[in-house]
């Protein structure tokens, strides 16, 4: 091949490549020019089966109603390090999405709401315009949620302010492999009490030994064990919480429990906590050895392979489990202890709450959103009766909004109000404590583990961990109250300039009131911390 042909061939190849790139850009990728001038991006980590379809249904309808607005759904693998790094780096860099899912329990992220999210209290206290013509037409937006956004208010950087709207209600349930249950017991009788579950676990062990199959009562992983631990610990400690309820509000926030620890009102040696730990250890013996090394995907696979009779999971896993299982699944509530239970009976306050306590999949508004009005408008549509119905029908997840029809297939996820909760389980009251519990869980489970070993390990680290978590609470509250001064001044100035607007003084008064409460809390925590410094 001579030089001329080679150079022509090179040129031809270059132009062909260029033409291909042009065709690709104009036909396959996102249009360079959009006919919708406003683009809102909403990100979340619910990449299980269900929620992305639910959200797509909402977006399709919203875009029909608003031809100016384009909504993009951003799926980020979630809850863990990837989501955390993605979220923080984008928010710091000013490239965050307009609306984003966030959970206050995300490790090392407790400063995020105060720094980057904007409150939506004013909108929450007025009716949702998308509920016009429905029974919720005149109901303030916040009160259209099945829980009145109770957890969101408690966890807000400023108590009493609203920062997020939710999309679903979650509960925890036992998912049972009915075919395996029939094979093991010859029937399909589900356990109702904890004693029934213990008896059934005995039969499972017997069956596994007899058949040589590696079958366990509960599919095991660190995640599932943690959910179960929180549930059991919350139930076991209700009487203790009632005893420590200094303010008489019949509930605890995490900072109440941190302060109560410094006051010496509870420790891992408290009999109620010990009972909860004993239950946790007992439950662990019904999972495969080494379960702490695996994550929720592994336990789901174990259950779907037919190697575990039950999986204890949140209803967030329901659509995936039901969609992937080759056997019939029964959804049941976790069997509860009775007053004669040998481990926990004497500490029993009542049935432990296994749902119904709050709505979830919290979507927050980024302070730096270029289109805050449109973003809030989309949030309102998402959590209107119509939006919520679309989400429920297409996701198989419970709705967060009152009056939305629940499909028959997921009625078992609903939690009637027949149980109690006093707030945070004592093992999840701060990110340092959560890490320490996870780090020391091996001392509780397995043949070498014991309740005493776990208690000793935790009590060695708790005083410092509690102080660290309380300091974080203080620092997060400072982060939230400081910018409020600027907001308050702005509302005051606008009130003077627009005396005809009745909303402005109301917003100012509410913000001042919640700031006073936050500052009082902050000062209480500071005082408690100062009193409990080592050596005092």
């Amino acid at each position, binding site marked *: 091949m001579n030089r001329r042909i080679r150079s022509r061939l090179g040129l031809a190849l270059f132009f062909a490549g260029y033409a291909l790139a042009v065709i690709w850009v104009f036909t396959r990728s996102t249009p360079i020019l959009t006919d919708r001038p406003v683009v809102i991006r909403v990100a979340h980590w619910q990449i299980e089966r269900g929620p992305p379809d639910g959200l797509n249904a909402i977006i399709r309808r919203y875009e029909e109603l608003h031809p100016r607005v384009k909504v993009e759904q951003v799926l980020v693998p979630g809850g863990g390090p990837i989501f955390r790094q993605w979220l923080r780096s984008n928010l710091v860099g000013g490239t965050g999405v307009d609306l984003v899912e966030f959970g206050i329990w995300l490790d090392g992220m407790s400063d995020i709401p105060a720094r980057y999210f904007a409150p939506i209290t004013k909108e929450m206290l007025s009716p949702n315009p998308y509920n016009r013509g429905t029974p919720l037409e005149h109901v303030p937006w916040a009160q259209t949620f099945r829980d009145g956004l*109770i957890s969101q208010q408690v966890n807000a950087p400023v108590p009493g302010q609203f920062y997020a709207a939710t999309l679903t209600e979650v509960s925890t349930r036992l998912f049972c492999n009915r075919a395996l249950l029939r094979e093991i017991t010859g029937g399909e009788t589900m356990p109702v009490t904890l004693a029934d579950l213990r008896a059934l676990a005995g039969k499972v062990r017997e069956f596994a030994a007899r058949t040589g199959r590696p079958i366990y009562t509960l599919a095991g992983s660190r995640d599932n064990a943690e959910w179960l631990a929180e549930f059991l610990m919350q139930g076991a400690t209700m009487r203790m919480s009632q005893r420590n309820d200094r303010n008489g509000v019949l*509930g605890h926030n995490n900072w109440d429990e941190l302060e109560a620890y410094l006051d010496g009102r509870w420790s891992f040696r408290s009999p109620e906590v010990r009972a909860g730990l004993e239950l946790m250890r007992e439950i662990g013996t019904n999972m495969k050895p080494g379960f702490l090394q695996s994550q929720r995907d592994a336990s789901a696979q174990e259950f779907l392979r037919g190697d575990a009779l039950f999986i204890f999971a949140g209803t967030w896993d329901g659509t995936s489990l039901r969609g992937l299982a080759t056997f019939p699944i029964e959804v049941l509530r976790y069997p509860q202890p009775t007053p004669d239970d040998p481990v926990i009976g004497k500490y029993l306050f009542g049935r432990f709450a296994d749902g119904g306590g709050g709505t979830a999949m919290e979507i927050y508004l980024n302070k730096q959103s270029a289109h805050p009005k449109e973003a809030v408008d989309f949030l309102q549509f998402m959590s209107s009766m119509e939006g919520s119905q679309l989400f429920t029908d297409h996701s198989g997840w419970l709705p967060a909004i009152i009056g939305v029809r629940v499909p028959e297939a997921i009625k078992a996820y609903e939690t009637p*109000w027949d149980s109690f909760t006093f707030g945070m389980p004592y093992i999840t009251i701060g990110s340092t404590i959560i890490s320490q519990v996870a780090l020391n869980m091996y001392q509780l489970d397995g043949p070498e583990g014991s309740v005493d070993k776990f208690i000793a390990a935790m009590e060695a680290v708790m005083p410092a961990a509690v102080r660290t978590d309380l300091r974080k609470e203080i620092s997060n509250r400072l982060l939230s109250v400081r910018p409020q001064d600027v907001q308050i*001044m*702005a509302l005051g*100035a606008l009130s003077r300039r627009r005396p005809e607007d009745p909303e402005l003084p109301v917003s100012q008064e509410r913000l001042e009131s919640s700031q*006073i409460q936050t500052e*009082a809390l902050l000062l209480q925590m500071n005082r408690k911390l100062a009193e409990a410094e080592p050596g005092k």
Partner: protein
Amino acid sequence: MRRWAALLACVLWAGVCLAAAPADEITASWQLVADHLGRDAYVKLDQLAGPPTREQAFAQAVVAIDYQPVTQERLHEAEAVFEQLARGDDEIAAASAYLQARMYQIHYQQQDYAKAVELFRALAERQPRSHWAQLGLVKTGLLLLYALPEPAKPADRIAAAEALLPRIGEKKLWRDLQLQLGRAGTFYEQPLDTVLPHLLAADRVGGLVGQVNADLLASIGELSLRAGHYAQARAYFERYLKEDTYNMRQMTVRRRLEDLAVLEAKAREVKP
């Protein structure tokens, strides 16, 4: 002559527009701040031409407090502006004096509560009816309750903060201090009969919303039960059930009403 009149009208109109422009721009800046777009407000205020008015200087200093990254140097500069503006006797002076105190209370890295209280008190002396002075008195109350070294005894701390109540004429702020006096009472484990009057006073003013209101109702009900004021406990628990219909805490309140019924029956038995 008509031409001259038209020209004069144009000049006057342009003058009015020019004079109005900064005020409108400042309103727009305040709106940006209220919409959490402080950075945009900062830029807008920075671009205003001419010598800054008092309000413009005030707005610039306010926005600077939260302009990221916040530095101690910038905070000191803002404080100097507040100190200067606080020398007047108008609304801006009161707001500036309040913010100067707030710098020492929460904005500086090293808080100086004594200095903050001194500034709040000076403002309350100078402009006692100003909203900012009244708000400053509530903040003084909080610092007395928890932060200042003196008085040392909890009961004395509460008494010192209580003494501020007659000087607070704004009902909602009076309510907020009453609520905090009640909360301080439980924090320091004071006798319930000294705590309850504060919580009841806060409830009488009303206007609290959401979780804060629900907590107040549950709290008065529960503390009244513990103090043996059964009728009051019943009234508040029943009100809670009516007003906080979304919270699973309803179950606990119902349980407490059952406990209350037992206690009431016992009390009736004891009575001759």
